[in-house]
């Protein structure tokens, strides 16, 4: 069975490469795994592929591309055909266009974001290895998430992008936010792993990034992340709280280029045959911030 395994990598534009690498290694606690041109490659300690985050120097912030890892190399041709059938144009990106990466299929999502599918990528292994491993490595720095967890993007036509993920990439929809009479879809949460969301969309301008989230183990780690962010004077968007949607525990903050990050813990397990949960747009405040029960201007409007 052909399968999209997970959100494998995200490439972000950053304004200052040195400052950003310092932040993502010292505060987030990722490991630098290589450099090529104007880009720095990083991974979290529990990830085994060569990188999950690429920082690329630019004069603007935001998302360059996101990419999903598919299970076999043959899946590339399979999805390529399905994507074309849906009406999106695909192109092949050749091996080693970026560091440690094999061939990829590139296309633009109905929301305008650059997306890729790939299978081949260099292998580095987790920091604890696979033979009688310790639960976590000694000498961890910063928030030290296990992995890149999910992305939230904004776009105009959420019905079409949802259809794309469900019909073409075989994702499930765990949750959705609808306006009265189900007229409009204003939030859509999609998964291919067993987490509550691997990618999500909220209504907004096309091609923009809302946040990139890193997965930590528990509420305690979310709280510790908050402590670290204060020590390093990183600007907060939202201090620790719970999401109604996904039930996860969360904290939001900004990287040195203004890209929003999240440290995310928990959330339920999603299964392919689960019924989609629906939130009324009038309840979105509770859906997003379960305690505060209202949205904030910065959370709704600050995008990169």
């Amino acid at each position, binding site marked *: 069975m052909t399968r999209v395994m997970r959100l494998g990598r995200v490439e972000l534009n950053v*304004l*200052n490469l040195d400052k950003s690498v310092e932040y993502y290694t010292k505060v987030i606690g990722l490991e630098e795994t290589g450099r090529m041109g104007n880009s720095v490659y990083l991974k979290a300690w529990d990830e085994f592929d060569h990188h999950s985050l690429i920082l690329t120097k630019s*004069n*603007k*912030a*935001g998302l360059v591309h996101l990419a999903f890892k598919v299970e076999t190399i043959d899946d590339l041709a399979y999805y390529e055909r399905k994507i074309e059938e849906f009406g999106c144009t695909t192109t092949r990106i050749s091996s080693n266009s970026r560091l440690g990466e094999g061939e990829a299929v590139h296309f633009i999502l109905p929301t305008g974001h650059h997306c890729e599918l790939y299978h081949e990528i260099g292998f580095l292994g987790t920091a604890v290895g696979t033979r009688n491993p310790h639960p976590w490595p000694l000498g961890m720095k910063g928030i030290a998430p296990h992995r890149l967890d999910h992305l939230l993007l904004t776009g105009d036509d959420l019905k079409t992008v949802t259809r794309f993920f469900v019909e073409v990439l075989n994702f499930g929809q765990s949750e959705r936010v609808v306006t009265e009479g189900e007229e409009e879809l204003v939030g859509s949460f999609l998964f291919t792993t067993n987490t509550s969301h691997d990618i999500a969309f909220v209504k907004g301008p096309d091609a923009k990034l809302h946040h990139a989230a890193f997965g930590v183990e528990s509420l305690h780690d979310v709280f510790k992340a908050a402590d670290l962010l204060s020590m390093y004077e990183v*600007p907060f*968007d939202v201090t620790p709280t719970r999401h109604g949607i996904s039930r996860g525990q969360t904290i939001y903050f*900004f*990287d*040195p*280029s*203004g*890209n*929003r990050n999240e440290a995310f813990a928990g959330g339920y397990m999603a299964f392919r045959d689960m019924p989609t949960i629906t939130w009324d747009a009038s309840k979105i405040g509770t859906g997003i911030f379960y305690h505060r029960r209202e949205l904030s*201007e*910065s959370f709704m*409007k*600050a*995008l*990169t």
Partner: protein
Amino acid sequence: MYKVTLKVRNQQFEYNCAPDQTPLRAARNEFIPFPTGCQRGGCGMCKMKVLEGEYKQELERSHEALSDEELANGFALACCMTVKSNLDIISAADYEDQLKKANLEEAK
């Protein structure tokens, strides 16, 4: 201390700002509803038009948030600028509204 006059959300505020403070920080310290996002020059939520006064804009910022042309035309990002004299600022959104209204008047 410099005096900042701010027009935002159809309201006017006056507050003090120290030379080493951003006008955004100084406003928030007085509970003035200054549009705030990333505070890192990335999102453009704090974009202001400077009507009068001296200031220093941090140049390393997202050019999508503040283009070179906007910079040359006296727009600034209040989260990454410092104040060098008394300042008269209006939010980019309010400024646009004002221009629209003025254009409508002219058309009459």
